[in-house]
């Protein structure tokens, strides 16, 4: 069969695909995307066109209720022993709709800050990005992680307000005001990874909100730059496996899941993507340097402080979107 995989860059390295194809006889077609586009695309196709997708675990329940684009996972076809049990259970809980499980964890990571410690040693939390001394030297995205990160840094708990639209809106209003106030300091809102990497690497920006992997990548190039878990806590995400509602090659999809969760394969994925997987025992195969970078970014208390995204209720994203638009348009 042909496995049409809708995934993120780096999650399906060519080397892994070659091994998979050799072992199972399936062929793999990869389409790269991100959370929003994955869902938009599946919505447009009515959950067709792909056999396996990998949205984050917080983006499964809501869209499923709204658009019905996934199909339940048959756990009997999955070798659950390959997964880190706690992660598997958490994901299952977060992706259950009407008693059916829709997602399995694959890769996890965090987002926080990338800081050039030589030039901006004082950046410890999201709100520090608004420091006037960094005028024209900081960058972040205008996306929901920024809203949530700032909310935490401002001492609020947005996740707790997920179910209370009014309270959440209240939080967003404050964050929005902060972001608008902060706007003059920002050099540019980055849109893609390339932009971010170029900004930090060239020294045009000295601090930014970003994913941990980006920071580690830059760290290879310039030891001054590294990922910093913010004081108010890094935001933790888990990218999952889901079956699109109209997928045709479920067998190949399960085969792929079982294949990439093998520790040695998962380690290859980690090397390509830069993030760790939910595969049990993959750490042993992982690159030493990456581990070292991970440990320097995440002291023990920082790991405990990671705030994992809960599932996003359906209507929240609209409110967030409006707030973000207003920030962008503000002078």
């Amino acid at each position, binding site marked *: 069969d042909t496995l049409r995989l809708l995934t993120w860059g780096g999650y399906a390295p060519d080397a892994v695909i070659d091994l998979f194809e050799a072992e199972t006889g399936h062929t793999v077609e990869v389409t790269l995307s991100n959370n929003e586009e994955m869902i938009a695309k599946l*919505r447009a196709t009515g959950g067709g066109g792909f056999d396996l997708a990998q949205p984050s675990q917080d983006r499964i329940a809501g869209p499923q209720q709204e658009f019905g684009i996934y199909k339940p996972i048959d756990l009997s076809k999955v070798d659950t022993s390959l997964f880190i049990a706690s992660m598997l259970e958490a994901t299952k809980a977060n992706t259950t709709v009407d008693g059916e499980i829709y997602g399995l964890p694959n890769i996890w990571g965090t987002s926080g800050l990338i800081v050039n410690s030589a030039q901006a040693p004082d950046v410890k939390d999201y709100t520090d990005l608004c420091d006037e001394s960094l005028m024209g030297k900081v960058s972040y995205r205008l996306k929901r992680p920024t809203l949530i990160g700032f909310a935490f840094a401002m001492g609020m708990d947005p996740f707790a307000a997920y179910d209370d639209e009014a309270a959440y809106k209240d939080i967003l209003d404050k964050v929005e005001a902060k972001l608008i106030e902060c706007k003059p300091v920002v*050099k540019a809102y980055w849109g893609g990874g390339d932009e971010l990497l170029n900004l930090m690497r060239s020294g045009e920006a000295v601090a930014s909100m970003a994913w941990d992997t980006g920071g580690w990548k830059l760290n290879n190039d310039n030891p001054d730059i590294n990922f910093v878990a913010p004081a108010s806590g890094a935001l933790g995400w888990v990218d999952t496996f889901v079956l699109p509602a109209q997928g045709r090659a479920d067998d190949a999809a399960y085969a792929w899941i079982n294949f990439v969760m093998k520790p040695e394969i998962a380690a290859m994925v980690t090397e390509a993507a830069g993030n760790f997987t939910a595969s049990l025992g993959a750490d042993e195969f992982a690159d030493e340097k990456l581990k070292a970078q991970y440990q320097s970014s995440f002291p023990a208390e920082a790991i405990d402080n990671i705030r994992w995204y809960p599932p996003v209720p359906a209507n929240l994203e609209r409110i967030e*979107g409006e707030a973000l*638009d207003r920030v962008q348009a503000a002078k």
Partner: protein
Amino acid sequence: MSSKRLGFFLLLAPLVLWLGLLIILPHIDMAIVSLRTRVAPREYAPSLDNYAAFVTEPLYLFTFLRTAVMSILATVITLIIAFPISYYIAKIAKGRSQAALFLMCLVPFWVSELVRTFGWIILLRETGVISGFLQWLGLADQPIEMLYNDAAMMLGLVYTSMLFMVVPLTTTLESLDDAVIEAGYDLGGTGPSVLREIVIPHAMPGIVSGCIVVFMLSLGNYLTPTMLGGKDSLWFTQLIYSQFIVRFNWELGAAFGFCLLFASSLIVWGTLRLTGQTLERTMGEGS
């Protein structure tokens, strides 16, 4: 006679299929989508809420106006830059160099807009080529940021649209008989007066068609504002894109799409009326 009718219908069929299936029906459908609103998961009700949102939310209106004004500005700048070039190609260059110059105008279109914009990013960024060059010349003592602002975006828009202005302008200017210009001088005209009374009126269809195309391209552009624009340069297409892709709100996105289509048609129609041209004539001559 009947074979003539048969021929007519055979020729009409592809046109009707094309326009009907790919332009008209989709737009009708989009109109329908834009006229409903979500009341609960997978439940929609007919309403005008989406249009109301467009009109009542200052952000949307403001973004739209900004986009339109910037597009008009880009069109005007493109026209001003392109006119002397087209004139040079059509009237001053002769023979081989004329053809060569014309082809050189096409060169940027050998690569996609993405690559062109990418090229500008390399040039304009703070640590980019131009900034470096200026420092090397001693004209600047520290890196200069030229990216992420409206000027950069304008540059990108103008650059990307240039061809669509130069081609119709050159074509219409070429059709102006040299003798008519000479007659203008012969009767006592000076450069500016000949330009104002003879050259520009003659080139009007080309100017209008170039302006329409450039305006529409700028208005509908997504890449350039996204890649070159600054932190407050929200473009209306970005708004549409995000409604569809990021916010999963097709209803509002469709309404936005319609507003864009409607308003742009209005502007085009107004321009045509103002200049006394027709779409048929300008477009027929323009290509």
